[in-house]
């Protein structure tokens, strides 16, 4: 962090004390400080080696078996190494869930930032945080009991999409809230001061400024939805063809991983599990990187707005 280094530049580094008063205790203290400074950064290795190995291992196993034929073949995946059905089913599921969660969360987030009094906004934000902290298996249970059983939807595509949407909603809600809360106050005052109605302010002034951050929220929610397993496995029955309607069964990329990981080496389910894991990791990492890039650019743009 910058503080430590400005201190060093100011000549306040403890190593200077060592040169002036050379006692054993001082030697130990400064030596400890120096060595802990070499050792603690090594903990980054402990944290980052597993993730590098995950990416390396999954790609090294999956990449040799992947081909355009595998990715596009629409054959049922229970008999052949074909991912087309799963990819399209997953895409449809994520798309529907994203649309649902945006409609659940976006307007609420904007309303929280713009119209709610501070006390109410605090409670609403807390509830969104609690929803984000709810384990995926609980959300899956909710989808199972409420949608599959009580609403008689069955283990259907739409039940999975709604369950996934409940899981993704708080992220979209919170990014919309933060995006609109962080619009500089002078801009808001200028808009209202020149006679804008609230909806005019939101549509014509707020949204163009906040849209990058809202997009990051949507991308992040998509990455989270794509990686989730429990809500889908609990609420959707597997299918080997692309779902034909909202109430038909469906499959999902992470579902292939969950069903295939215990299969013997070289078997078809394990191969599919590896390939699905590779696709999921690639898409999730790409989405996360895009989120970070947009967020960094957005921060710069907001800083520019203040000048």
């Amino acid at each position, binding site marked *: 962090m910058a*503080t430590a280094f400005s201190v060093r530049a100011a000549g306040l580094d403890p190593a200077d004390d060592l040169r002036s008063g050379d006692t054993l205790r001082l030697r130990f203290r*400064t030596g400890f400080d120096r060595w802990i400074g070499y050792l603690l950064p090594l903990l980054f290795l402990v944290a*980052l080696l597993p*993730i590098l190995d995950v990416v390396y291992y*999954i790609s090294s196993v999956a990449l040799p078996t992947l081909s355009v034929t595998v990715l596009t073949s629409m054959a049922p995946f229970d008999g052949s190494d074909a991912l087309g059905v799963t990819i399209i089913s997953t895409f449809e599921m994520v798309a529907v869930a994203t649309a649902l969660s945006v409609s659940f969360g976006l307007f609420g987030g904007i309303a929280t930032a713009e119209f*709610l009094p501070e006390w109410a906004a605090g409670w609403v934000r807390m509830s969104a945080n609690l929803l984000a902290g709810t384990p995926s298996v*609980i959300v899956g249970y909710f989808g199972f009991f409420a949608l599959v059983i009580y609403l008689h939807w069955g283990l259907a595509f739409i039940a999975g999409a709604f369950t996934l949407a409940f899981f993704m909603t708080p992220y979209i809600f919170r990014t919309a809230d933060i995006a609109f809360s962080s619009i500089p106050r002078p801009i808001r005052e200028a808009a209202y001061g020149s006679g804008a109605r609230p*909806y005019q302010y939101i549509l014509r002034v707020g949204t163009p400024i906040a849209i990058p951050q809202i997009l990051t929220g949507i991308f992040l929610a998509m990455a989270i939805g794509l990686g989730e397993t429990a809500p889908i496995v609990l609420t959707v029955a597997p299918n080997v063809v692309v779902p034909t309607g909202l109430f038909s069964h469906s499959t999902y990329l992470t579902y292939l991983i969950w069903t295939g990981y215990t299969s013997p080496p070289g078997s078809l389910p394990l191969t599919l599990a590896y390939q699905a894991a590779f696709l999921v990791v690639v898409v999730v990492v790409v989405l996360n990187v895009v989120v970070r890039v947009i967020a960094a650019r957005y921060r710069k743009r907001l800083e520019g707005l203040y000048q």
Partner: protein
Amino acid sequence: MSSAPTTAPTGAPEPLPPRTSAPPSRKAPIGRGIALPGKSLPFVLALVPAAIVVAIVATLVSATGFHNFGWGFFLPGSASNPNGVLIVIVGSFLTAVPALFLSMVLGLGIAIASTTYLPSFASKLLDPFVDLLAGIPSVVYGIWAYLVLAPILGTVINPWAVAHLSFLPGFAGLPTSPTSAGVGLPLAIIVLTLMALPITTLLIRDALRSIPRDLWESGLALGATRWEVMRRVGIRHGSRGIFSAVFLGFGRAIGETVAVAMVIGSSARFPANVYDVTNTMAAYMFETLDAALVNATLGKLLAELALVLLVITLVVNLLGRRLVTHIYAQEVPGL
């Protein structure tokens, strides 16, 4: 300072008419009337996440059928619940608490390295990678741990621990995994540590980063080393964030489902030693729900277990969130 019109000198401009409405604030937008259909619409829209939380609780309560299992819910014995859910509750804590401890130790180390010792370009480069860890789906961690880590644990680390650490209680005796060597408590703890690590690291890092600069520099000026300032001033100043990391990391660890289900061994029994297989609440719930379609009593029991887990995570999250004021939305998924 009110300017009464009577004291105004002659020739002065006419004073402005007094304000008829409250001054505009951010929360009460300017404009005659509200353009949105009704003043209550923003409240209704904003209540969607709260409504989902309430619906989850209500659905689970109703799914229990208001069937009271009594203390038999926790203890073994009844026909519908031969093992007692106490086993999976114990299993949850046996995996989540050590994982939380490890990820707090690692997170503190990484956060101190990042805020205190690394040059800023290095921490700017490395911190996003740690945050990215949170984005990796748990099922990917699960398949990696099952296929890469489990053989290492089963053939190298566990036998070594049996040979050299058997003087410790619980470390004696061979691993008794029935399915494949290496799965069990240690593997679940490792996976959960990795999954809780980005959250604890991020929260501790932000807590330590918010140490006021003058506090930091006065500590150094008094002759303390960077480590001493961090240990005696920084940790204390950031204690709220560190405690919130404890709560939120625990919430993540105890709620983790699929990765644990893949590596815990899924055996409903109390572990006989530290290498043994067991099960956790979330993993047990995840694996058993299929049976609830045909067994209504089991469904009620699972709903009750889900309520137990939900209450634990809600309380833990509530405590953790009360401690930090910063809002996290986009940096780390799952937080």
